[in-house]
């Protein structure tokens, strides 16, 4: 074949190497350029390097307890991250999930205290999530308010509402062990939040990559008008994704309140930014149409491992936020580099 027709094949190689890295794909360009092309691999490498660095600093890191701790601690962010990834894929964003986590926590605890029923409490929490998502979705699609603005407004509304609802923390008066175990219990050696996270993760991994719904999410974010012209009910799809995203956040909120054993009105501050940063670190684009749940998993794990490292190394905990910020800039920088490198190879 002549050079002209071999160009797109090169692109093809790159795409497939993402799934199955093989030496065949490395044909042109420096090794470093090649490596930079595979986002998920880079991320895994970063995770490994950070873990190694921390374990040099302290032997505590590589203990089973600590690793299970990290997983338990990450599960809330990863659950919310699943919803956020899907929302970003459709080209929207939700900044209200941090406030929602607090509100859901307080309401859930309060209802359980009043009814002595874990089921009703959790149902109330999840319903509050679904309702919030529905409103976010309607504001975006019917009132045509940009979701960045609309969900900042929702963030304020929810935070204000939770204080109006209860100024003090909703303490656990019910002493129901089944509720306590949602956040703190184990099934075998696995923490229950991790099990919830893994189940949701696998289910939505399949939905996103194998179903009509998943394909439509990518199409909507990739080109909204094209999706519309193809007969996709773009508005309904977006509302559905907003609802899913808020329900995921509500699940995280329920796990959190169970772990803390009290519903704090000021919980979840900055939670939305941490989740969005992890998702973006995982390669999901803010512009819509692109993103993977694998990236989200690794991206959020990186942030949580850094967090854990700072704690067990007994560094100043305020460093967490600073370092997370720096990592975001680095991640976007690498992502840009990657895109340029990719287009260079393709146009060569």
């Amino acid at each position, binding site marked *: 074949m002549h050079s002209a*027709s071999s*160009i*797109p*094949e090169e*692109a*093809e190689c790159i*795409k*497939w190497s993402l799934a199955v890295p093989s030496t065949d794909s490395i044909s042109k360009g420096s090794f470093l350029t090649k490596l930079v092309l595979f986002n998920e691999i880079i991320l895994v490498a970063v995770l490994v390097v950070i873990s190694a660095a921390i374990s040099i600093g302290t032997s505590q890191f590589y203990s089973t307890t600590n690793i299970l701790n990290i997983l338990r601690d990450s599960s809330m962010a990863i659950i919310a991250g699943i919803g956020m990834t899907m929302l970003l894929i459709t080209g929207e964003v939700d900044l209200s999930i941090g406030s929602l986590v607090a509100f859901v926590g307080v309401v859930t605890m309060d209802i359980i205290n009043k009814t002595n029923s874990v089921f009703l409490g959790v149902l109330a929490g999840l319903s509050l999530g679904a309702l919030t998502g529905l409103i976010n979705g309607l504001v975006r699609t019917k009132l045509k308010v940009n979701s960045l603005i609309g969900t900042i407004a929702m963030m304020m509304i929810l935070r204000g509402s939770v204080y109006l609802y209860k100024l003090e923390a909703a303490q656990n008066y019910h002493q129901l062990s089944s509720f306590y175990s949602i956040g703190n219990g184990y099934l075998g050696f696995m923490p229950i939040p991790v099990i919830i996270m893994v189940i949701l993760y696998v289910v939505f991994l399949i939905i996103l990559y*194998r*179903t*009509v*719904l998943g*394909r*439509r999410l*990518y*199409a909507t974010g*990739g*080109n909204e*008008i*094209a*999706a*519309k*012209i*193809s*007969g*996709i*009910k773009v508005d309904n799809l977006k509302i559905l994704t907003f609802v899913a995203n808020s329900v995921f956040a509500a699940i995280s909120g329920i796990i959190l309140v169970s772990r803390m054993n009290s519903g704090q009105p000021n919980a979840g501050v900055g939670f939305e930014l941490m989740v969005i940063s992890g998702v973006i670190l995982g390669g999901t684009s803010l512009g819509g*149409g*692109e993103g993977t749940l694998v990236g989200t998993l690794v991206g959020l794990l990186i942030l949580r491992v850094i967090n854990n490292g700072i704690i067990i190394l007994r560094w100043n905990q305020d460093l967490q936020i600073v370092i997370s910020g720096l990592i975001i800039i680095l991640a976007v920088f690498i992502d840009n580099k990657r895109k340029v490198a990719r287009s260079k190879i*393709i146009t060569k």
Partner: protein
Amino acid sequence: MAPDHDTVLDVQRISKEFPGVKALDAVDLKLNKGEVHALIGENGAGKSTLIKILAGVYYKDDGEILFDGDPVDIATPADSLKLGIKVVFQELSLIPHMTVGENVFLESFPLKKNKSIDWDALYAETKDILDSIGLDISPKTKIYKLTVSQQQMVEIARALSHEAKVIIMDEPTSALTPNEVEHLFKVIRQLKERGIGILYVTHKLEEVMAICDAVTVFRDGKLISSRNVSETSTDELVTDMVGRSIKTLFPRTHTGRGDVILNVRSLSTEKKLKEVSFQVRSGEVVGIFGLMGAGRTELAKALFGLDAVQAGNISIEGRELKLGSTSQSTKMGLGYLTEDRKGEGLVLQMSVAQNITLPSLEDISSAGFIKRKEESIRSQEFVDVFRIKTPSLRQKVMYLSGGNQQKVLIARWLMKKLKVIILDEPTRGIDVGAKAEIHRLIDELASQGLAVVVMTSEMPELLGVSDHIIVMCEGRITGEFDRESAAMEKILEAAIGQKEYRHAEQ
């Protein structure tokens, strides 16, 4: 060439090439002081390219520009403005939330000694300029409060503040009422008297006759003729604009027509369409022609449910179509190939196969799960039949050429099994070879019994593919022709709103 003292702008053998298109091929144009010079041609003739070169937006590949007899280099918009060339673009480039005065002096505010803006001078000078062109508004009015024609006058005032020697007007009357056009002409005559050369880009021949001294015709990026208006006629200009034998280029194999499939009655939209009615039969290709702003794309979008419809109704095979719902339209068997392939048609990050199957996902899935094997098999069929050049089905569609991207979009609709397809500018921006293939596909669509609507601004394409031709002008149908009775001259007359050709039947 001897310098001509009356010539202010002398364009010599200018060429400009874009990937795949020779937009300008060694064209000449000579504009004299105090002359109104019309530049006319069909869409794609190269008019805009020349304007943009003169405005410093594009840079010429070849050729020379003499200004006042001296060779000049126009590399940036600032260069152009400095020379005294002012372009009044179709989309006006004023800043809506600034005042008239601020916009007029945007590039060079009058300053006091201490370098602060001399507002008194700014508004006084603006007032003088506005008076000189008979525009009776306060210089402190915000731009967004003005009508389009007033804004246009502000653009002209801006040109005068720069002491422009050449003013280029790009389709200046496209958004004006007849009264406003009269006022514009008055101002143009004043500018003439001041010795300003005006390049008047238009497709309205009656305006050429009314206001212009000389006229240059471009076609396919080439200079066709340059004459004095007094020595020519509209007929001659039309022939120059179109002038080629076309009929044999697009053989239609299929001519049999079936029942009426698409029936559009009195369709009106708020912005553009006025009482548009027509029918399309099974196996028939209806070509809809119109110049820029005639309402073709608006019609396509209203038909498909992308734009809101004010009045009228649409039925497919006798069943009423719910207006304003694209998902309903696709369910009823209506497909729309947009003119904006990348902006509205393709999902660029997705693969060839994923783009082809996008509207047909329900047909290749069970219980919501996509059957990947079936997706590959069915899209591969179309890749083979249409000869879509791609290394694999998994190739991202953004890496395909324009012609192949267009084939992907047509394949998308063929897989969906439609009754009606609307093709908006199906061959825009694709090379000649691929064009012929797309035309073959259009023929193929009709012979499969679809009702085909082709919106086009290209005359040869229109005459070549259509069984029936509808001409639009300013949102209305101004002409209807059968394949046999269609003649370019009549079509153009209808398109510029000079004459109407309506059938009694239909």
